[in-house]
């Protein structure tokens, strides 16, 4: 179980607990349940790399405590 931090630099900072083998799509659903936006409106980025929905966190090498950027579509 890892915990990632998502920050949208406008006031929303969210800590989400998830598994390493969750996909980005699952992570978006978890974030959506915490922030209240729709999961398809969320875009998770790491410095211009837009993370795709079907790839797991492990494959993106997202580790425990890592910060991701939260943008909106």
């Amino acid at each position: 179980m890892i915990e990632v931090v998502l920050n949208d630099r406008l006031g929303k900072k969210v800590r989400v607990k998830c598994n390493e083998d969750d996909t980005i799509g699952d992570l978006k659903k978890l974030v959506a349940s915490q922030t209240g936006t729709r999961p398809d409106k969320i875009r998770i980025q790491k410095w211009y790399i837009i993370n795709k929905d079907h790839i797991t966190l492990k494959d993106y090498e997202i580790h425990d405590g890592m910060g991701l950027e939260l943008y909106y579509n």
Partner: protein
Amino acid sequence: MANRTDPAAKSIRGTNPQNLVEKIVRSKIYQNTYWKEQCFGLTAETLVDKAMELDHIGGTYGGNRKPTPFLCLVMKMLQIQPEKDIVVEFIKNDDYKYVRVMGAFYLRLTGIDSDIYRYLEPLYNDYRKVRRKSPDGNFILTHVDVVIDELLTTDYSCDIAIPRIKKRWTLESLGALDARKSVLEDDFEEEEEKDENEQDGLEEEAAHEKQDYYRGRSPVRDRERDYRRDSHRHRDRDYDRDRDYDRERGRGRDRDRDRDRDRDRYRLREEKGYGYERDRDREREGRERDRRDRDHGRRRIRSRSRDRKRHAHSSMSPRRHEAEDGNPPEESKKKKGKKEKKDDGTDHPDPEIAEANRIRASLGLKPLKL
């Protein structure tokens, strides 16, 4: 300049009509080439020509959320605000289904509640196929009536948050609308009559049996059961055993369900009275034994062979029966095991983790691996 709403346009829901579309989607539409090239200076008439060229519906798609031409044209309609007659014309036209869907979409966004129900419900009868662009860029097959249903029941479609409207029954009670009359009503009535004739004895049964009813009462299944019963009838066997055999094999219902669950209720059913099938079959086959059973009640059927297999049951507790196949004992054991320890982690001692697992379970994800 080109993105400003027509100054003579009314405000929808208290705001600029273009604000019905969210800011981000709106910006994406304004930056889109289709909007800039084709939608410049469109009027209601030229809009119709553009709409006739549409070949799919959809919201935004792709990694950078590109809007579809459908969305751009809806935006244009919001901008120029055509009159209600024109929109109704769009909906009524039969030749171009995408024009129809577009008109319906616009009406749903801007019309009043009674108008929405009045004009969109007839479109439930339109079964034509419609191409829809999914958010990841692929095309999906859907139908006009599915789209209309989505418009009327959900609150988000094609990347636009659809305004809330009053429920139908509210409007009916206000008198603004008549009760909904479905085109399939006549067909339903026929079906109901047929079903009523078939299922006379069944109303007493537990409500959950409704599912059983649909599965078990179809004429084909009844016929199957009868054939199988007949085939066993002439064999040199204990009748009761045959009956059990038939019930287990021929009914099919038990095969597919958790036997424990079914068995209890099924048993209770037997005890309660005369199961429908038994009545009918008895009438059909007119076996002496059946007649006797009917007179003396179901308990009688607990003959020697039955007792060998089952214990007399007056209680609802699940019984293990080797006569039936090995699945029931295993399934019930598993069920018991599950009750003791939830496998989705929602009973974890740490409340945070339990809460996280609860959310994950509600989203359909596996629990956290600790």
